């Protein structure tokens, strides 16, 4: 058939492409899968801390005022110097170092499970704490040690793919991504056991990445950014490692301790 003009060619091309699309991909897509089904990474299971960084501040209780590497502002330093573990213990505040801003750094184990299709649950044996990560609308009002955590999947951006007038890439990313958790509305607590403070207005952003290493182990990397203008002069970033366990070995829920 002889095509008379470029307009006719483009029109035919659009119709043809639409027909191919219809045949190739079927009916229009339905609602997106729930977060559990859409998970780009499996974080569930038991994970044990690998304390290879900040060892002294995590495995022991450093002296008062020892805030090595933490960008405390003058108010933060003042609060750190006011730390009184005896008082915390006696006043029922012994879980201050086990709140959302510090619990990941406590040596111990995490047990991550799906509470339902929209909610991940992270239990910590250190201090017997539970964090709940809500995809979508969170439940609860916060004002406790763990606050309110909103979850989402953080996946690499997708670029227009093959065929689009040479704009795309014939490869594209493999499936993968991280869990992003933003936590607010928690009680004020400690970044470290020696009273290095964060306030109730802090915003804690975390990314949970999983890596498989050559010896067969899987690692969980929790990257944490604490923003707290009240006590910090800059964002406080840490990256905390865990190793996957086959079972609950070593799971040992313990009470919070201020000392």
């Amino acid at each position, binding site marked *: 058939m002889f095509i008379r003009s470029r307009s006719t060619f483009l029109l035919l091309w659009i119709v043809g492409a639409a027909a191919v699309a219809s045949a190739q991909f079927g009916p229009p897509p339905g609602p997106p899968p729930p977060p559990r089904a859409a998970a780009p990474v499996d974080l569930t299971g038991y994970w044990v801390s690998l304390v290879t960084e900040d060892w002294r501040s995590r495995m*022991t209780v450093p002296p008062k005022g020892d805030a090595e*590497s933490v960008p405390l502002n003058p108010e933060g330093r003042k609060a750190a110097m006011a730390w009184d573990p005896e008082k915390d213990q006696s006043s029922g505040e012994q879980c201050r170092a086990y709140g959302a801003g510090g619990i990941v750094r406590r*040596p111990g184990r995490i047990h991550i499970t799906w509470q339902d299709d929209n909610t991940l649950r992270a239990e910590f044996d250190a201090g017997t704490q539970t964090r709940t990560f809500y995809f979508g609308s969170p439940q609860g009002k916060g004002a406790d040690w763990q606050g309110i955590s909103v979850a989402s999947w953080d996946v690499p951006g997708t670029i227009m793919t093959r065929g689009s007038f040479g704009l795309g890439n014939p490869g594209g990313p493999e499936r993968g991504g991280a869990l992003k958790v933003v936590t607010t509305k928690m009680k004020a607590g400690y970044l470290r056991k020696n009273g290095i403070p964060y306030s109730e207005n802090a915003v804690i952003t975390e990314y949970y990445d999983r890596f498989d290493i050559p010896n067969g182990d899987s690692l969980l990397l929790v990257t944490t950014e604490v923003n707290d203008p009240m006590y910090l002069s800059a964002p406080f*970033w840490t*990256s905390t490692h865990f190793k996957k366990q086959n079972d609950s070995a070593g799971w040992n829920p313990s009470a919070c301790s201020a000392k």
Partner: protein
Amino acid sequence: MKTNLHIVLFSAALFTQISLFAQTAPPSAPPNRPSPAIDFSGYWSPAVNEDGLERGAGSEIGDYAGFAINEAGRLWALSYDPSRLTLKHHQCDGYVAPYQMRAVGNFRFWEDRDPHTMQLVAIHIWAQTTEGFRTIWMDGRPHPPAWAPHTYQGFSTGRFVGNALVVNTTHLKQGWLRRNGLPESDQATMVEFIVRHGDHLVDTTVVTDPVFLTEPEVRSDDFFRQPADHGAWLYACDDGEEIIGRPPDVVPNYPLGQQPFAKEYSKKYKIPLLSGIAGAPSIYPEFTTRLKTATDAEAEALLRPAPGPSPVSQAVDPEPHDGEIHVWPISGHVYMLVGDGGNIVVETGDDGPFVVDTGSGQLSGKVIEAIRKLSDKPVQFIVNTSFLPDRTGGNVKLRASGQDPSLVGSFFSMQFRDAGVNATIIAQQNVETRMVEQKLPEPGWPMDTFLNDRRRKYHNGNAIEIFHEPNAITDGDSIVHFRQDDVIVAGDIFNTTQFPFIDIKDGGSVQGEINALNEILNRTVFQHEGQGGTMIVPGHGYLADEHEVVEYRDMMVIIRDRVRAMIRGGATLDQVKAARVTADYDTRYGANTGPWTTDMFVAAVYNSLKQAAK
């Protein structure tokens, strides 16, 4: 109007295509396929919110907590004296890649893409501190063989897996896991996972080191993105003279079990001594309970070698053992031939091949074949760096391969012995003497020998110097320096596979070995940050530069110091052996079987020092 219609239709077509692909899951990327969605390019600065002391001023000696170090790693670190950095050859030590990524200072990442296909060829990382320059190859190329040189940054290949760039690094030099002397060996490998969450980049490093670690060491480094070049970079290091008049065979170190600062860390922070030296258990949560009952007495036992048998080398055997000869280009027209039980070096050019050492002789036919692929001329000269069989085993056949009928009977034949008939074998006189004594085949004897400290020759455009190194491995050792191509052939004086084979009965000695290693170092010039530049061919093992020789020299001096101190204290050889004076080097060089065991080495050191003391 017609133009507008085209625009509308083109837009509709584009929209249709975009919509089409928006409905589909992105296809899986084949291995090594770059993900278009992850780009690390730009300027990054480290967020030093973890281990600030370690990364800043430096951790205290004795603080090895959180590292899965074995006994060798612990003792190596405890023997370390930071004054070692005043030595000329350590002043410009670079950082090995795992530690480099942990360094303070700025970083730049950029991509290297094929100019035509835009395929990602490599990702480069430049680090401010020590000017560390890393290349992560993304084009699927293989890692080099075991006999290839090691560098501070190693050889890295990468691929995207999920949302991470996964990097495999091999061929690392010996360096630091922590700057207080905690070592990482040249046998370490690293896997990294680099992820980017917005303007926050995290590099998780997993270091596996069979020499110094009992399990992989996992650490992470955080970086924040800078909007532009921060303009803070450094310049290359040059060494200087820090301590004038210090003898060249002094290497600052502490005797095993006598590190004076071993308890400083625990005392300063009022924590058990065990905290810093427990190794892998210190990584896990249960250790907090263990610390409650830990006593200094039990920890003190970890400050010195444990009694009992010595462990053996955990290093990769760099020999191919495949019955083939492998050629590794070194520099210019100088090549290393690997596979015949000892490294062979060939220099080629218009004057014909100049060969240093001939291997064990088991694969001489293939050695000759390999040389002929490099040069169509007959072998002209052979230098033997000692009389030992791994240096001279192929002499007879390689000498014969030098036959050149075109020269026989010509006036050239008067210029040097064997011209046109055979290759001429050059060596220090004691090589010939030992070969005659030991009734080795006469056609393999060197017929052009020298007695002075230096023999020189100009061949293939290279100034070649042969230096006698008295009483090192034997009494006839030499090193060969190709000056233009800047390659030194060390023979058995230096290797990367075992403790030096000090052959006392044939004139070797500990002090001679140390002197010889220092003579090599007197002739090296590094290219950048203590690496590259002059390349050194070991008798066995991988192609090295001065850094490997320095570490080997340090080891010899340190072990000599320990044995000498015990001899002065009246110790017998059995007592020296029981003290495990090589404990921090056994997992790298030790052997309990074979022709050169740890016990034999210790005996050689002891007997050599005893002889010298007489």
